[in-house]
């Protein structure tokens, strides 16, 4: 690991820096000539920037930056940020999603104004997510969470002539604002009890929190609420269908994949580092056993998401609900942590992370396909998708791959990641969680296959007019599809990395 050790410590945040600089660069490009927008230049810059950031993250990950073999996590700025395997792993998710979204937006935005702003907002949101994954203090958690959220609000409401987009943006913003207020209040309560915001110090301060265990519990609950919002889990999930349905589809893709993953990244770190289960559960007054909370949330979230998805007629909305369901699966990672879990804790957390990576590909791809459909102006319901495969077989194949992978059918990445997740849950002794998850997966096949059925089997109810063949969207969708497929044979390095880096948290 020679080259890395010669770099200064702050260089470990290079992915975030690159993303932020890309965002600024986009603003500058837009500044030079605000009246015209060179779409390919903007999209290209954004894509290259996120790819560069992703490349750096991958390089660091391979080189073992911040992992045990090179001397452990790199802590920066008074422990406010920490670069370790987990943060790099999540950075990889964010950047790959951001790259796909950037490429896809090239076509989606071709007749929109304010393109430079769009891309730079995406980049800034990605920066915020990257920082979220690195946050080691409740302060940076909150700040980076807002940095990720604020551009997202604007992105959702980006189509300012479209009532759906505005409504989505409004609802997303309102609930986001409330939840961030709740989150901040939770942080303040935790600070009141422990006197620190840095996660390990919070854990250290918990020991004498017996007196105020009620306040602490409330604080933890509120912090969990903040994460529930970011990850679109029950009880702060109800913005998700609106926001995802109304938002421009690339933004939906971005939010439902990257933003969700970011929420999980920070939730994983906060709950495992700041509120270690063995300490908080043994506090007086019954303690604060958050794993039970998350177990309940996980079950409710996945069940609710799946059942609601099954009743939808609008494909985008169905995907929105399904994304709630997937939040439930990923929550297993926190729910299945036990006091004396040892290795199993890291395994299940890692499996959850790996699932999020796979999810990043398949879900982004699915939403980008919808972006393509929106671009064609075909319609939004299942009926409108009828017979699409006759016109655009390749895109339809990609969508089929996404749908089956999301449902967890075998030949795709989603299957193996769900398997890893449920298996790890069983290994931790939470077989009932795995069982609920498996049943939900089976149920989800129903509504996912409706899309497939509509595209391939149904006759078009009206003549389909496919205008253009958007190159950027095609590239992004096919990239996502290939990624989804290749993650089946290539799952070993992913899960291995994820579980290694997750184990470092305990």
């Amino acid at each position, binding site marked *: 690991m020679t080259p890395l050790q010669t770099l200064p410590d702050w260089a470990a945040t290079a992915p975030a820096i690159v993303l932020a600089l890309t965002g600024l660069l986009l603003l500058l490009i837009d500044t030079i000539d605000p009246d015209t927008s060179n779409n390919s230049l903007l999209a290209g810059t954004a894509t290259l920037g996120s790819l560069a950031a992703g490349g750096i993250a991958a390089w660091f990950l391979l080189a073992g930056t911040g992992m045990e073999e090179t001397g452990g996590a790199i802590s920066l700025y008074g422990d406010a940020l920490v670069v370790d395997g987990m943060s790099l792993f999540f950075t990889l998710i964010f950047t790959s999603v951001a790259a796909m979204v950037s490429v896809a937006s090239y076509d989606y935005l071709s007749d929109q104004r304010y393109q430079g702003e769009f891309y730079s907002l995406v980049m800034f949101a990605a920066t915020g997510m990257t920082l979220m994954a690195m946050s080691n203090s409740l302060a940076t958690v909150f700040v980076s969470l807002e940095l990720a959220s604020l551009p997202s609000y604007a992105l959702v409401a980006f189509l300012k002539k479209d009532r759906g987009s505005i409504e989505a943006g409004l609802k997303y913003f309102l609930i986001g604002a409330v939840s961030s207020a709740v989150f901040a209040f939770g942080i303040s309560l935790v600070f009141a009890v422990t006197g620190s915001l840095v996660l390990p110090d919070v854990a250290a301060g918990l020991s004498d929190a017996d007196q105020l265990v009620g306040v602490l519990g409330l604080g933890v609950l509120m912090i969990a609420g903040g994460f529930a919002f970011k990850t679109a889990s029950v009880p702060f999930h109800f913005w998700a269908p609106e926001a995802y349905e109304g938002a421009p589809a690339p933004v939906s893709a971005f939010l439902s994949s990257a933003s969700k993953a970011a929420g999980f990244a920070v939730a994983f770190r906060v709950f495992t580092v700041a509120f270690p289960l063995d300490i908080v559960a043994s506090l007086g007054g019954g303690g604060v056993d958050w794993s039970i909370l998350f177990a309940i949330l996980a079950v409710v979230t996945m069940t609710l998401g799946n059942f609601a998805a099954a009743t939808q007629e609008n494909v985008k909305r169905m995907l929105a609900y399904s994304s709630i369901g997937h939040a439930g699966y990923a929550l297993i990672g926190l729910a299945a942590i036990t006091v004396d879990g040892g290795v199993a804790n890291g395994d299940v957390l890692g499996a959850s992370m790996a699932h999020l990576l796979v999810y990043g590909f398949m879900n982004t791809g699915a939403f980008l396909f919808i972006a393509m459909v929106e671009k064609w102006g075909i319609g939004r319901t299942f009926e409108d998708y009828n017979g699409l495969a006759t016109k655009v077989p390749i895109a339809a194949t990609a969508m089929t791959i996404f749908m*089956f992978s999301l449902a967890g059918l075998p030949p795709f990445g989603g299957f193996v990641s769900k398997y890893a997740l449920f298996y790890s849950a069983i290994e931790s002794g939470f077989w009932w969680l795995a069982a609920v998850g498996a049943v939900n997966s089976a149920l989800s096949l129903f509504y996912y296959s409706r899309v497939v059925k509509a595209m*391939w089997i149904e006759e078009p109810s009206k003549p389909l007019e496919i205008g253009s063949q958007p190159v950027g969207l095609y590239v992004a969708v096919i990239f996502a599809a290939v990624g989804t497929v290749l993650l089946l044979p290539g*799952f070993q390095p992913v899960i291995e990395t994820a579980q290694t880096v997750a184990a470092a948290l305990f």
Partner: protein
Amino acid sequence: MIIEALIAVTFLAALVTFVLPDRYAGKAAFALSLVPVLGSLLMWQQYDASGNALLGGNIAFETDVVWLQLGQYDLHWMVGVDGISLPLVVLTTILTTLAILSSWTPISERESQFYGLMLLMEANLLGVFTALDFFVWFVFWEAVLVPMYFLIGVWGGPRRKYAAIKFFVYTNIASLVMFIGFISLVFGLGDSISSLRLPEIAQALQAGQLSGFAGLSASALASVAFIAMFLGFAVKVPVVPFHTWLPDAHVEAPTPASVMLAGVLLKMGTYALLRFNFTMLPETARSFALPIALVAVASVIYGALLALAQQDLKRIVAYSSVSSMGYVILGLIAYTTYGVGGATFQMVAHGLISGLMFMAVGVIYNTTHTRMVTDMSGMADKMPVTAGIFVAGAFGYMGLPLMAGFAAEFFIFKGAFESTVMAAMPLFTGAAMFGIVIVAGYLLFAMQRTLFGPFEFDGDYEITEAPFHDVAPLAVLLLLTIVLGVQPDIFFTMIQEAVNPILELGGAF
């Protein structure tokens, strides 16, 4: 590495075909599918294994690398063939090629997609028959469903949506049940295994490593797992009473898909029964001999009776498949060399013959656009070659000596009579033999009504002899049937070699 190469080449061929323009797709797919045929023949030629792959035998073309290390059980990429799987691999490649050839006429829309899916299915089928790790096997097992779902759903008949969904839902639920059964077995084995490789699991089970799980004793667990897996596979086979998806799927499916469905997909079920239930849990299998034999005989008789009642040629052939699969089950439960070996041989034989029958029905349908027995008669006048092959195939089905069907059924009956799993076996065998009579009944009935007699046809289509590329696959299949009938040892020797270790388990002799 030849197996990986085979699967990869087939996948690639599927991809290439998928993006080709419709005009070239059929011919390209046919040409491309010859590569796996040659590959599988090469494997057959270089085959050097002995014994059963699961029971410590020497595995041919074996690859075993760690794929996924996850918790206690590693997942391996383990493939290889033994005497049971190689014939099925060869069957798959040959039948796919012929099915592709036979689709040139009936498939006229979205051709590149159709042929792409056919090749994709072939690749997955090869995976199913060669995988020796449960996980890999399961991946391929499920993956087969997807192309089949589309083949039925897109290119099928009027009720294709219903049929496709029914097929998909039935088989998927079955897979889930089977999966649960198998996984509970794995958990029952606890620490005695470190991976999901089938040989390892089978050998651990033979070594009596099974312990209780989830409040069940070891034997109870074995029974539960056996039942779950049996139910799961039984849907795929299918046996009565889980057969209801089959006629729907067959009737609605386009001819080539029917060929693949009857010829290969059904064999997945029996193959899995042999590999999992009867190899891994022989004791349990024996203890369930009575119900299994009952089910087998019920399938034989009931399937045949249903076939007798049909007016639709395709439905007749479809129900006859249920009947034929009953023989396979009977042979498996017999637990004798000839029984199990004959069952395996029947898988191949039935694959060829049912493929032949479906193709023949398809050729007739291509010309007449109807499959109803009542709609036509005297077709032999107009289509002598097709009719001839049809008749020959039907006789093969009925068990005419010197044809593969005869050999297979002969082996099964011989094995079943010899069986010692229970006293009443000869009785069941006798009952099953009665099925042959019914088969002869409905096939002769159907042929007599459609092929012979004065020519009559209600449609406004001109009836002429089918084109060469339609008849050629029929001829090839007929030829293969005869070859296997005359010289069953081509496969039967290696099958026996692979089967015998199973029979030695638990002191069958």
